[in-house]
């Protein structure tokens, strides 16, 4: 658990980005499968419940199946068809490629979720300001905005309700567009008022009054972070070696 939660968010983000970039150039199905196994293990070790992981896998898998299908069928129009299912022709190479990018997508998605699940948003912003040169004038307002996301959904429901009570349901596609515009205007005017008030409240507590500010939370890099990066590099190399040994490894370069 603490293996991930205790790590610096910027370091974690860099590792996830690195692995994702690497996976993008790999086009065989086995290698991303190995990485997906690691991603699942990491998510579990990070404290995600199996149920949560399963729920997250559903949309990723649906997307993946779409990739497999379209690639298999699309590739068959160019190469020789290996199988015929009803009116559809599919090729084995297409299927293999589709499977590769589908699993790659799921693996990248799972790494990203493992990152989100084990990272506190405040820690992330403080760490990005400390280690990735994110200006605090951007980072802190982002945090304040993040706090508002749930309010936005609530407010949207209320605006819809209030408008429906006044005017009945919109009729026709044009009516629906006009209704959506009206809702958006109301929401935006609410959001603007709220943002203004927040800005005043931040000003009132001296935000950005000085060029420098200090931080209550520490964004300190520890030995654990170095070990974490080392571990990630070693694991990645081992997986690539394993895949290559099995004769499966293919990259975009061939």
């Amino acid at each position: 658990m603490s293996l991930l939660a205790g790590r610096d968010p910027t370091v974690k983000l860099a590792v996830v980005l690195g692995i994702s970039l690497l996976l993008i150039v790999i086009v065989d199905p086995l290698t991303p499968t190995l990485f997906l196994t690691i991603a699942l293990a990491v998510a579990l070790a990070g404290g995600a419940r199996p149920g949560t992981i399963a729920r997250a896998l559903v949309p990723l898998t649906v997307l993946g199946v779409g990739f497999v299908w379209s690639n298999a069928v699309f590739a068959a129009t160019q190469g020789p068809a290996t199988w015929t299912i009803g009116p559809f022709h599919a090729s084995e190479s297409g299927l293999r490629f589709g499977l590769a990018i589908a699993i790659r997508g799921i693996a990248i998605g799972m790494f990203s979720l493992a990152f989100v699940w084990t990272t506190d948003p405040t820690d992330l912003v403080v760490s990005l300001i400390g280690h990735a040169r994110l200006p605090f004038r951007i980072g802190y307002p982002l945090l304040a905005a993040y706090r508002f996301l749930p309010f936005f959904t609530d407010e949207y429901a209320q605006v819809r309700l209030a408008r429906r009570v006044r005017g009945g349901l919109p009729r026709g596609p044009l009516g629906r567009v006009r209704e959506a515009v009206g809702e958006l205007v109301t929401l935006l005017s609410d959001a603007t008022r709220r943002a203004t008030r927040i800005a005043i409240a931040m000003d009132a507590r001296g935000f950005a009054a000085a060029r420098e500010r200090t931080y209550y939370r520490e964004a300190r890099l520890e030995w654990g972070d170095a070990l974490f990066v080392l571990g990630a590099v070693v694991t990645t190399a081992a997986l690539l070696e394993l895949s290559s040994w099995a004769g499966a490894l293919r990259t975009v370069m061939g």
Partner: protein
Amino acid sequence: MLFQDPETQLVMLETDDEIAFGLENLGLPRDQMVDRVAEARATTGLGPGTPRRLDALSGGTKQRVALASLLAMRPRALVLDEPTANLDPIGAHEVVAAFAALATRRERSFLVVEHRLDPLLHFIDRVAVLGDDGRLALAGDPETVFMERAGQLDRLGVWQPELAELARLLGAVRLPRDVEDAADLLIERWPRGASVERQDRVFGRITVAAHGVVHRYHGDNRDAVTGASLELHEGEISAIVGANGAGKSTLGLLLAGVLPPTRGTVDVSGEIAYVFQYPERGFLTATVRDEVRYATTIGRRIARDPDALLERFGLARLAGANPHSLSHGEKRRLSVASALVTSPTVLILDEPTFGQDLRNTRELMTILREERDRGTTVVLITHDLSLVAEHADRAVAMADGAIGFAGRPDELFQRSDIARFGLALPPAAAAFAQARQRDPGIPPLTGLDAARTALAAREALQA
């Protein structure tokens, strides 16, 4: 400066980060911040049991966190802008208690911008009253302002402390500084044997009947309203009261037919209009004139002259203005006017006096009483028990989604378990209740109106 709305002045996600935010901006070293955060938490009563995440806190606690975040910066003076206006009675009490602890220490100056002064009377050293033109209309110590210049305050449309009005009714010259003080005054001065006979209003036929109504919001794991039964009548003002989250608004929406009951039935005879807490969310047109006439554009029958309504609601001169550009009070009146244009049988208003000053509240309540006298069923969803004491014929108190009491407001006020509904007696009623505990000769009156009536009846009897 502490602002009115707890939601729009917190900028972080967790309590300690919030308190430290100002200190970070001051550039304080970390070890000092840790000490100051702990100190500010202690001063505002935010113990170790306080949830870490701000979104898990109640409105009152959020407001205390906001207060703590200011105190941590050790200002010499603090401005508080209606710090309890957006809170329910329990939350308001929480914040007033935190403020009281600070004010008693007299370590710094406070400037409180406020309509409702009773809970603060004990601490006020000086009062400044602003007129409509934004200039200083009146200033002085509270006793002078509230006891001697009351007529002027009334002309300015300023809320007066209930306890000050009560003292004047009793012919006292000294300003009671809290409920206990006012209770002493009652015991000393209330004319024993003043008649407190009450005339029960006679209501018309039933307009709305709810039977065992249950509602559960999509995705929730508990019912917001758990089997409520209620009948509303013609010519009756009912008030639905209770703490935040007790299910008041949901019940209102169910009665109005805006939300479908998950179980149970709501029978309505005639049309229902619902006025939301934030009227601007329901505005649909670009001018005040169109807004009032909106019902015709969707083919509804207009029963009352829109221009006459605008005139009546003091909006005639704004007919060409954009509804979003109006003031709080005007927006509220506009939303009520556009609801009344079809002459609904039932009018339901969610928090109609929220954030309104005395003049706006009075105007609105006069209008609503007129509507009631025309036979309209009026329902107020509110936290404001003074409003309930003065205007409601019936009070419906909710706790945890269930109706725990339905009856006359004075009966509700006499219940010993009123706190169960997240309610606290309004100041004048609290003074009567406290005095009565010590002297049974004091009648259990609900507020100033009832006191005035009782005193007038006695005078008539003596004359």
